[in-house]
């Protein structure tokens, strides 16, 4: 594994204070952070919590690939950390966390956006929403 890349599957919510560890570098002047957080509504329904299911080995492999692609595109100097959550998360919990550290802010912002958009389309994670009225459903997604 590349020392400039770190990916991890977490049981339970992503702990936001875990970020930026080992990402400092004297040549880096920018760090962008992104957290995907459980929202209390979706398509008019009141969300109580979300269950996250995932296929760990392919998740880890695909996150590494996405990070490598970002570093090829915006520079090998980029340091990238990605955490994704598994299990039940309540409203306000972080389900995904991304930190990109780079020499300048433009590539940090762009690479971070690239990583989250790629995760939404390529990483085998599935969400089952549980609603306040007691109903639940698996959300539709993108075919791999």
């Amino acid at each position: 594994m590349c020392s400039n890349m770190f990916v991890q599957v977490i049981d339970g919510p992503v702990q936001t204070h875990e970020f930026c560890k080992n990402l400092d570098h004297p040549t880096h002047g920018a760090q962008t952070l992104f957290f995907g957080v459980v929202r209390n509504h979706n398509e008019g329904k009141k969300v109580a919590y979300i269950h996250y299911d995932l296929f760990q080995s392919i998740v880890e492999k695909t996150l590494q690939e996405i990070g490598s692609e970002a570093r090829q595109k915006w520079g090998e100097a980029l340091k990238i950390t990605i955490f994704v959550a598994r299990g039940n998360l309540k409203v306000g919990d972080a389900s995904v966390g991304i930190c990109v550290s780079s020499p300048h802010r433009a590539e940090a912002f762009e690479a971070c956006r690239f990583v989250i958009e790629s995760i939404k389309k390529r990483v085998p994670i599935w969400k089952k929403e549980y609603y306040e009225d007691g109903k639940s459903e698996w959300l539709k997604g993108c075919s791999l």
Partner: protein
Amino acid sequence: MKKEISIKLFGAFRKYDSGSGELRFSVPSDANVLCIKQRIVAEIEKIEQNPQIKTLVSDSVLANNGRILQESDGLTEDTQFSILPPVCGG
């Protein structure tokens, strides 16, 4: 010649597991991924009549050893597969 295979279930397919987290059935040893997907539909229809299951299986992919397979791929020595429904990301 037939071969017994197992299909690990994720996401919307999990409710069809019989406690083991997977489906098990036999297929001809020259079956390809498309045949296995058709068989998954048949196995699930034994459990529940769901008019959307054909579409869900069609929109899903099969994987083994961490690799996503094409519908035309044939069976190798592998007997363990996973079916991955459309993904939602984090």
